């Protein structure tokens, strides 16, 4: 019997990282989800991150499961247990395991002794042989190999096998034969490990009660759900990674909840367009005509949409755009994450334009901000961007249960009804009647008095065409004031004051988990930093206050050019020199160590209670 424990590894319960190296297209996703979800069902906080190639079949893919009893949601740089299923990446995968860690591989074929390491524990399980001896058919042998390793891990890590069986039962509720073969594979792996290795390892899980009233969901699904709940009726899109699953999600929710029970007809319209230009055009046309409409896209799509975004800004048409950011520039790395579209979204299109952006930090906020985005777009009559990213959009995050308030009434903004139009003498489309810089609009088909001509060319406050400088400027200046009104309506920044008057940290979106973990780590070292997570652009007064009240401010974001820092320096009174960037743009989600190292490296030592690097 092989002994598992390394001499220097104490028990690590509910605090470790498993990385699973697979080949794309071999069906590993279901086994990896099974592993993660069974631990989640055991009440243990988990986080799954998928590092996949821009490919359908054959290239390397990794899945990382972080088990964190503290509930940290960020990626960890450490790998405690590697499941090395891909011969092509085996050499690198072996190297990546931390000293004292573990590795599991398919021992059907011997691995070169060269690739061995003495400071980790290596488990060889003849996964392919087990499957070949038990199951028929090439495809099912390949697929079930994954379930066999899930069983092996179940035994090694002390995952409750009944929970795993239940999950398989749910997945294959209507497919008895598949259920049987999957359960068989699971048990083969589980029993093999029990028989050949000392189970469980010191590195293992134990039941907790930290996942009650929580769900595991990805941001695109949550955003899609938000679109349905907000009452969106027109979705237009062009498929692009990593946004595609948002419209897929919307479609499947609508197929369940938006079918007229009497006629079987659809209470929604989805248009798969010829490109992103048409997708945003369709959104603008639908919103102009009174439907809540949206498009999910990513950076290249935003680039293409620029002209239309400027039209919607100037002609004051609502539009909701989900930008699931991926690595740029150009095609970049389509399956990797970044926050690199902040500048292009904030000022999209030629001429003087500025747009409302929302920055969700999780799938939970994707849901709520999707709803807010429609309210804001219609209230402000302007495009609103929900700036998600691949990490939030495509990975499963543990979130508190999403809640819905049945008293919610959508804010459709200032739209004149037929009755209102009959009452008034004359309708002026771009006139600031209420002093909040938001004019009234009308919908086609309502009343001849409400008819007006929408145009991207120069127009007066009454809606007429103009090339007159004064008339043009009246409208342009009002649009600027409207952006001031937006500041009072967008979600405010989240402040986490830890009592520091000198050190502050500003971040946004998917950095949040890593920042919170880093701040805890720094506090343990005696470094107290106040934290502000901005949730929207334009920045409200609380952002200005935070920047004013701290003498040194770290700005943490996931792009090369410090785009959040640029926006802060452009749009607030903060001195540029007080903002210190901590940047991460590798394409992998940011981890806490990047932030801890960044703070310790750039903060003047006298300000830190405890200096030195980790």
């Amino acid at each position, binding site marked *: 019997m092989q002994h598992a424990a390394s001499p220097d590894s104490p028990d690590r319960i509910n605090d470790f990282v498993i990385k699973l190296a697979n080949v794309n297209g071999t069906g590993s996703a279901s086994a990896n989800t099974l592993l993660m979800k069974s631990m989640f069902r055991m009440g243990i906080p988990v986080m799954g991150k998928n590092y996949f190639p821009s490919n359908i079949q054959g290239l390397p893919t990794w899945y990382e499961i972080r088990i964190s009893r503290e509930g940290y949601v960020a990626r960890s740089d450490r790998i405690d247990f590697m499941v090395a299923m891909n011969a092509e990446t085996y050499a690198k995968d072996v190297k990546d395991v931390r000293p004292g860690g573990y590795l599991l591989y398919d021992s059907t074929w011997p691995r070169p002794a060269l690739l061995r390491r003495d400071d980790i524990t290596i488990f060889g399980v003849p996964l392919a042989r087990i499957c070949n001896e038990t199951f028929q058919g090439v495809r099912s042998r390949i697929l079930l190999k994954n379930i066999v390793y899930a069983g092996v891990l179940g035994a090694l890590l002390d995952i409750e096998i009944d929970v795993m069986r239940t999950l398989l039962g749910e997945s294959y509720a209507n497919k008895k034969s598949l259920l049987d073969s999957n359960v068989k594979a699971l048990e083969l792996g589980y029993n093999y490990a029990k028989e050949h290795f000392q189970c469980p390892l010191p590195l293992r899980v134990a039941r907790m009660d930290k996942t009650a009233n929580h769900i595991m969901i990805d941001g695109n699904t949550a955003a899609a759900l938000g679109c349905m709940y907000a009452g969106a*009726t027109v979705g*237009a899109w062009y498929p692009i990674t990593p946004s595609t699953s948002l419209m897929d999600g919307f479609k499947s929710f609508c197929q369940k909840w938006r079918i007229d029970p009497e006629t079987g007809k659809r209470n929604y319209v989805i248009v798969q367009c010829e490109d992103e230009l048409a*997708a945003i*055009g369709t959104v603008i*046309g*639908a919103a102009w005509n009174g*439907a809540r409409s949206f498009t999910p896209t990513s950076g290249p799509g935003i680039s293409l949409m620029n002209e239309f975004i400027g039209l919607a800004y100037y002609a004051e048409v609502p539009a909701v755009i989900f930008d699931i950011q991926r690595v740029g520039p150009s095609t970049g790395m389509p399956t990797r994450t970044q926050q690199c579209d902040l500048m292009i979204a904030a000022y999209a299109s030629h001429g003087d334009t500025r747009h409302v952006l929302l920055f969700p930090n999780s799938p939970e906020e994707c849901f709520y901000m999707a709803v807010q985005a429609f309210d804001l777009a219609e209230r402000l009559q302007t495009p609103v961007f929900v700036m998600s990213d691949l990490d939030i959009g495509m990975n499963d995050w543990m979130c508190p249960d999403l809640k*819905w308030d049945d008293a919610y009434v959508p804010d459709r903004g200032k739209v004149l009804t037929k009755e209102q139009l009959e009452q008034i003498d004359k309708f002026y489309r771009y006139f600031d009647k209420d002093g909040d810089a938001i004019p009234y609009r009308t*919908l086609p*088909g309502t009343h001849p008095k409400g008819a007006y001509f929408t145009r991207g060319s120069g127009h007066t406050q009454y809606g007429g065409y103009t090339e007159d400088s004064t008339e043009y400027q009246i409208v342009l200046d009002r649009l600027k004031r409207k952006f001031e009104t937006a500041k009072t309506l967008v979600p405010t920044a989240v402040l986490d004051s830890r009592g520091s008057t000198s050190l502050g940290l500003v971040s946004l979106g998917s950095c949040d988990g890593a920042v919170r973990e880093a701040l805890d780590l720094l506090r343990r070292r005696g470094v107290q930093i106040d934290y502000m997570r901005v949730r929207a652009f334009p920045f409200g007064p609380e952002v200005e206050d935070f920047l004013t009240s701290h003498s040194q401010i770290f700005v943490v974001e996931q792009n090369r050019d410090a785009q959040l820092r640029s926006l802060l320096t452009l749009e607030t009174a903060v001195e540029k020199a007080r903002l210190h960037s901590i940047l991460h743009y590798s394409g992998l989600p940011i981890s806490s160590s990047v932030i801890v190292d960044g703070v310790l490296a750039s903060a003047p030592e006298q300000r830190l209670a405890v200096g030195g690097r980790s």
Partner: protein
Amino acid sequence: MSFIAKPKIAHPGLPKNELGLTRRDYEGGMSTLCAGCGHDSITAAIIEACWQMSMRPEQLVKLSGIGCSSKTTAYFVGGGHGFNSVHGRMPSIATGAIAANKDLYYIGVSGDGDTLSIGFGQFAHAMRRNLNMLYIVENNGVYGLTKGQFSASADIGSKAKKGEENLQPPIDPVLAALTLGGTFVARSFSGDKEQLVPLIVAGMKHRGFALIDVLSPCVTFNDHEGSTKSYEFVRDHYDEVVHADFVPPAREITAQYAQGDTMPITMHDGSRILLRKLDPSYDPRHRGQAFNYLRDKLSQNEFVTGLIYIDEKSPEFHEVSGTTSTPVNQLPFAKLTPGSKGLESILKRYR
């Protein structure tokens, strides 16, 4: 362009339609195009068609891109909403607008640059979706606002004002529409109101995408000798193959035509178009034949006009999409959200 605004007061003796409205009630703002522009004649034809149809002005949605042609949506039916969008992208605005409210009339006005160059992709896909709209190409073979460059519809050998000869083959919107699956394909001439008005009415009644390519000479940049889009050249070379007369649902077909040369086609709302075939062998329901006939005539320098092809059976966009009968922009919010109860059941999958 004219600088004197038309008086708002209409003569009491002007004829009224079923809604009690005169033609003046279907006018829009003053045209800012050149005097004699073919586009203004098309505007007049649209006004006449809407009046004849007794359309409520607010029921008309006017969409356009950029260019001389696209400006014209401001010059007719002032009681309907207009949207002058971005260059070549009107079809996507139309897609969204039609998706939101299927119960209005949609008319898109475009030009040869807007449709055949910058907007060719969107034009093709609007047709592929069979959007329920009338799409008019005001085709003059030239870029007017930028002062006289050839457009993609300019014929080989056609001469620009300063003598330059066009050497690239043209894209013919009608041939393109026939190959792309257009369900109502027509060509007309801005100078032939008798032909154009009923085509516009029929196009608006057609359930699906109706294309009318209207040869519309540019008096400033493309009306000289050597141009194949001048008034003179078009008049000499156009050849009507099928004349369409629109017959409202309640009215009898009274006109007398030679037996065998007429063909009534029933539209979705019960109205009919009476097709008068000027070439008895021609069948406007046969896509392949229409294509070949056009190609043959084009090679002889003849522009075939009239209702070239019609298919009233293909499902339009909303039928294909399975959309509910109420326009989706009018669905009550309660029908759109499953509420907190529904959310509980949805979340089960994520536990």
